[in-house]
């Protein structure tokens, strides 16, 4: 369900292989899965929201877990391709202070970092 790839050896990209809702058990699986990938060696981690259909508070807690892993090494977490509704949800919780939320594609975000 989740995919992790590296771009330019140091930028990690997390995406969903198909459109899904990050809620309940899926959130728990997402949290477990992120512990199995090498986020710590990334200078930046990008989460591609293209396939995130919906997210609830449990899904947001999973994103916070990724943020904690990434920020512990001084790296940034960038979220791209999010729907307007999900962006509003994250802003309501003031998580736009922690996550860098960009209105662009993964390719454009990587290009901006290089």
């Amino acid at each position, binding site marked *: 369900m989740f995919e992790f790839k590296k771009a330019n050896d140091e930028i990690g990209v997390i995406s969903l292989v198909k459109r899904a809702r990050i809620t309940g058990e899926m959130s728990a699986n997402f949290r477990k899965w992120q512990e199995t990938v090498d986020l710590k060696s990334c200078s930046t981690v990008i989460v591609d929201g293209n396939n995130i259909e919906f997210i609830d508070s449990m899904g*947001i*807690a999973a994103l916070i877990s990724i943020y904690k892993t990434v920020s512990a090494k001084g790296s940034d977490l960038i979220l791209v391709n999010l729907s307007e509704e999900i962006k509003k949800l994250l802003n309501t919780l*003031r998580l736009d202070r922690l996550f860098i939320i960009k209105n662009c594609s993964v390719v454009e975000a990587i290009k901006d970092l290089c």
Partner: protein
Amino acid sequence: MAEENYSFTVEPELYKIDAFSAKVSEIVRRTKGNETGFRAGLIVIEACSNIVKHGELKEDDLISVNLEVGEEEVTITIEDASTEFNPLKVDDPNLENIELLQKGGMGVYLIKRFSKRVDYRYENGKNLLKIII
């Protein structure tokens, strides 16, 4: 636009609540647009998940949900027979502290922030939560 009225019951399982939330989102989205549809789905999943996580429901207890899609407002009424729990008495989470935020309190906060009004009462052994979007 005439008012649409729907009554549902949902089993207290997180995966069933997720599917139900998607259904409510879709019903509301059809006449009210993406944003209100998203809000309705979010409120349903947060309120019903709270009942499952904290309510000590028996296996055969069902959560009843009434959905009214009116011209001006969408009203969601959620009824359950679990232990008395008034979500309006839950303190808002400290948004400055992500450790605490991650542990809980986000759900009730989101229900309050994404609705126009929330009313709660405990009556005849049932929690009744009415949310107006």
